[in-house]
């Protein structure tokens, strides 16, 4: 690949120091504030960082992304969490397009062709557009350390590289009818042996409400641990929505559509009583067959208490007045 290997820039072992440094400076917040789409001459003059586009209509009456931009203190706290070792992050994956076995995904996915890659963004937008990988990488990449909580009852702390989804959505200018975003994963039987199993309907589909999609915490990730995303982690570009169960964070995205109706995700279609559209992390709402009160922290041999919204309290206003048990 002609791209610069980012591992040259950020070796794994300097992560801790760098994290502290960043935390001290509040640099993440700063980067997010300064982050402009350098390659987007046509981008409208919405105020940075990720202001809800004037054309977008959040479903709920929620504060704009500007108000919910990460504050340095909160970030510092989050940064104190011990990162999950890269071997575990890249060796324990759910990616059913390859296999149901979490430890076999890495091997089966290693040859996934991620270049060239295109993400077709359309639907209820003024400016439908197909983004090549270079277009995606042109958005200013920043680091976000998030905890990922899987619906199966485990979690990891992962240093992602990526950019707010809002920036990409702003670039295509959603119309006022757009109320939801629908995402779709690659479904290539030549490369993905798991597509033979009919556990889910392929291609894998996920969705977000417009205000969730525009929230500053919601990112499109292109890397982790300072390197390109490994295929098993959803290369070359995936969604990361840290306050929702991991299956919402759809991998290897090829299509993004802005739509008026709530999309039916693959898991909703497969088991509507077990997986809802929202899938917000919530220790008080057990899965019909197992508890969600705690989670196994991968790489530590320990458990921790699961937190509402996975600890990302700033998203609570998005669900004000909603019954979280009903809207699971």
């Amino acid at each position, binding site marked *: 690949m002609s791209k610069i290997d980012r591992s040259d820039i950020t070796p794994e072992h300097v992560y801790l120091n760098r994290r502290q440094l960043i935390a001290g400076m509040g640099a993440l917040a700063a980067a997010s504030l300064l982050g402009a789409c350098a390659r987007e001459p046509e981008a409208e003059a919405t105020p940075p960082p990720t202001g809800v586009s004037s054309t977008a209509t959040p479903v709920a009456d929620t504060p704009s992304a500007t108000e919910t931009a990460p504050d340095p203190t909160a970030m510092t706290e989050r940064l104190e969490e011990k990162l999950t070792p890269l*071997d*575990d992050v890249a*060796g*324990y994956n759910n990616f059913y397009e390859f296999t*149901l076995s979490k*430890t076999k995904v890495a091997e089966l996915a290693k040859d996934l062709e991620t270049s060239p890659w295109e993400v077709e963004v359309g639907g209820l937008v003024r400016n439908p557009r197909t983004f090549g990988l270079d277009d995606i990488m042109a958005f200013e990449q920043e680091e976000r350390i998030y905890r990922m909580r899987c*619906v*199966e009852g*485990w979690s990891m702390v992962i240093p992602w590289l990526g950019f707010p989804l809002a920036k990409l959505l702003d670039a295509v200018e959603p119309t006022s009818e757009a109320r939801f975003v629908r995402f779709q994963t690659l479904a290539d039987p030549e490369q993905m042996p798991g597509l033979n199993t009919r*556990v*889910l309907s392929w291609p894998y589909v996920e969705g977000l409400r417009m205000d969730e999609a525009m929230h500053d915490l919601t990112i499109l990730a292109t890397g982790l641990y300072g390197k390109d995303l490994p295929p098993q982690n959803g290369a070359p570009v995936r969604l990361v929505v840290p306050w929702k169960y991991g299956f919402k964070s759809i991998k290897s995205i090829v299509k993004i559509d802005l739509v008026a109706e709530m999309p039916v995700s693959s*898991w909703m279609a*497969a*088991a509507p009583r*077990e*997986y809802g559209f929202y899938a917000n992390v919530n220790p008080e709402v*057990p899965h*019909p*067959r*197992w*508890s969600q*009160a*705690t989670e*196994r922290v*991968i*790489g530590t*041999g320990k*458990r921790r208490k699961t937190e509402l919204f996975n600890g990302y309290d700033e998203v609570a206003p998005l669900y004000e007045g909603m019954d979280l048990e009903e809207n699971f």
Partner: protein
Amino acid sequence: MRREALPWLQIATHVGGLAPLAVLAWLFWQDRLGPVPVAAAIRRLGRYALVFLILSLAPTAVRLVTGSSELLRVRRWLGLYAFLYAVLHALAFAGLDYGFDLRLLATVVLESRREIVGLAALSILGLLALTSIPALIRSLGKHWKRVHRLVYVAAGLVVLHYAWNYKELRRWPVAAGTALLLLLAIRLPPVARLLRQRHNAEGAGPT
């Protein structure tokens, strides 16, 4: 002839019964159980329990199909190994995974159908293990057989517990459930009677 065959069958049963535990302990010790060793250990112990539980149902089926009651001699041990692995599975869950935090365990188990079903199966297996003590077998007399038919209930619960562990329906729980249904079907009175009649007809000839 029977005297000769007996020790080998016993030895094979005990070697087969303890080998998985030895291998698992070694793998755990060597940290070769993958990225989440605790989960892998719990899962393996559970699978061993299920395998021995299904094996413990085989001797009756084999007798009905072939007329040979040889395997019945190890049936009790197969059942006890199933119980042993079920206990280790539950201990690993409560201890390795939840650090014997009883309050937390109570919360988790009570809101989890998967765990309730598992606990029910474990209780039945405990009862069956207890009533495998020779003195109790004798005192139960006729009732022993009836009590021990609960093994089919336990096996059904175990298969459910296994299947519920996954987000989707998986191949192995289905395979285990199918095996269980077959073993159960063989011993249903009409089927068993038919099979027995066949043996009696065959056995009528010179032996």
